[in-house]
């Protein structure tokens, strides 16, 4: 496992968010993530995990607190939002592949349109990435023709093709059949060994134990506990964490 450096990639301080219907989903959530670090976020359903990581690439706005991503201060300035999104990739629970594009085109779309790179060069890279996640032979197919596990691996490759410095995962294995979970986790584990910074919302305890540098528990819109995996699972300091672990272990 590579060791994280001391450089801060994500710094979220006391973030508060209200949804338009008035519901407060984040109540002062804070988190710092260093470069190369793999942080797993756990917590009960509705605790604000998705909302929290979606603020990191400005898919959700927030009303109080501050977030800095790779040195860029997130504000409502549109130029900043575009800059952040180029540096931060995201993998969704529902894959969200573009069904009208072939697998290869799913990968090349953004680098060509956003980074303005020549198509041929991006395609080379896309092939290499598909090779890496083990589905190069499906490059010409459409997402609807792939299994869930294959789709999620394509989604990871698609995010990687933008060469992000940070990858966010929102329950990447939750909508997969059990036998497909492993193939996706393996890909993620291989990624973790590299320089890339990862924030992963997941309920996969084994992944959290063996891959994460740090595990975080969220409850009611706050970060309750933050600890190294061993400590987190064997000797958490908060009552709330113990109750949560009792439920999932």
């Amino acid at each position, binding site marked *: 496992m590579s060791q994280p450096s001391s450089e801060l990639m994500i710094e979220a301080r006391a973030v508060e968010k209200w949804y338009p219907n008035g519901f407060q989903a984040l109540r002062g959530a804070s988190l710092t993530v260093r470069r190369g670090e793999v942080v797993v976020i756990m917590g009960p359903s509705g605790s604000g995990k998705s909302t929290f990581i979606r603020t990191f690439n400005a898919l959700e706005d927030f009303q109080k607190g501050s977030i800095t991503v790779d040195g860029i201060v997130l504000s409502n300035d549109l130029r900043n939002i575009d800059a952040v999104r180029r540096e931060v*990739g995201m993998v969704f629970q529902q894959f969200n592949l*573009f069904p009208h594009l072939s697998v290869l085109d799913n990968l090349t779309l953004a680098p060509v349109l956003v980074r303005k790179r020549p198509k041929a060069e991006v395609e080379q890279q896309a092939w290499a990435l598909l090779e890496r996640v083990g589905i190069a032979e499906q490059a010409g197919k459409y997402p609807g023709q792939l299994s869930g596990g294959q789709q999620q691996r394509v989604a990871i490759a698609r995010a990687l093709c933008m060469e992000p410095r940070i990858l966010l995962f929102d329950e990447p294995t939750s909508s997969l059949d059990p036998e497909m979970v492993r193939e996706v986790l393996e890909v993620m584990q291989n990624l973790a060994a590299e320089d890339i910074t990862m924030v992963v919302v997941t309920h996969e305890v084994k992944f959290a134990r063996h891959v994460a540098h740090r595990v975080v528990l969220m409850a009611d819109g706050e970060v309750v506990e933050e600890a190294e995996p061993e400590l987190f699972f064997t000797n958490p300091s908060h009552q709330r964490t113990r109750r949560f672990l009792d439920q999932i272990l």
Partner: protein
Amino acid sequence: MNPLLRRLRAELFATRADAALSLVLISLISLAAIGCLRWVLTQAQWAVVKVNSTLFAVGRYPVEQQWRLWLLTALLVAASGATWGLIRAHPRPDRTGVLWPRNDRLAVGLLSLIALALPWALDLNLAIAGRWWGLTVLLVFCRWLAGRYGARLSPAGQRLAALVWPVLYLVGMVLISGGLGLVTVSPSEWGGLMLTLLASSFAILLCFPIGVLLALGRRSDLPLLRWGSVLYIEFIRGAPLITLLFLGQNILGFLLPGGLAPERVWRAAWVLTFFAAAYLAEAVRSGLAAVPRGQLEAARSLGLSYPKALQHVVLPQALRVALPAIVGQFISLLQDTTLLSLIGLLELLGTARTVMANPAFLGRNGEVYLTLAVLFWGCCAALGLGSRALERRLDPHAVPSAT
């Protein structure tokens, strides 16, 4: 037993009840068909159509300028043939393409048959019949050429080839109305099928972008934009087209910046456009609603700007879903052009009414209306065929990834 007979038996006469029902239906259909045919072949007097075929086609367009319309038809035919061939030469990447599928051979046979039969049925003189044959040969030739060599066209070349259509539209406008050295033919002299097609294609082309913008506006976060779109759509959908057409003749001259709608024809075309845009917006909105939220989020998280995400991710999927509804709108738009006759324009129906008002053709309404129905049916069938081809082309095994 012969397989066809066996199939007929299985489908029509499987049980006693089936057989009885089939026999009743077959006799009813035969009776109706025989009646129609008898009327068409023995009772109807087709002179009214034969004598006025030019009037039905182009209205009172000056005879010495009609070569421009023939030229335009030839260009359109060549472009259609080339497009048809190019589509066959570039099958979707995940499919194997057949250059001459059975349907295409059938279509060519049918078109040739029509080209041979029509001049005979209409008593066209040899010069004009020859032109129809020439057009048919041109179509098949371009179809063959593009199918044979189209595969060599690079993607950039394909995009360039698609530009032929908008360019052709502008060329057509010039050919029809004159200018650039050609004698001007004022819109008041346009008529017949040409005016019908011109008005409907103008409205179809322009209502499409307006309708998409309205649909996006209706879903926008900006309240002003949203309410503006809703107001517009609901106002237009609440008013009958005919009142809007009359209204347009009276006030459009004031609303549009000077010189944009000087002629009654153009005013009517704009009203059709604005009218169709409201309905189109609703069709597009249903398509947009069918695209999962995650698609926009995924595109945005990859760094695509909102317009780019719409253009490359959301709209292609939304329009694919909305395509049948959109084409339905186009078809009713085509038929709505008949209302132009009520504001005194001589499109197909208007032309038909002047013909029927002529004492020489008294009582020949049946023949005229049947001709009109067949012409409209032909245009709508062409639209429907095109849309089905497009639908098949846009549909991979596209099941949205979010279920």
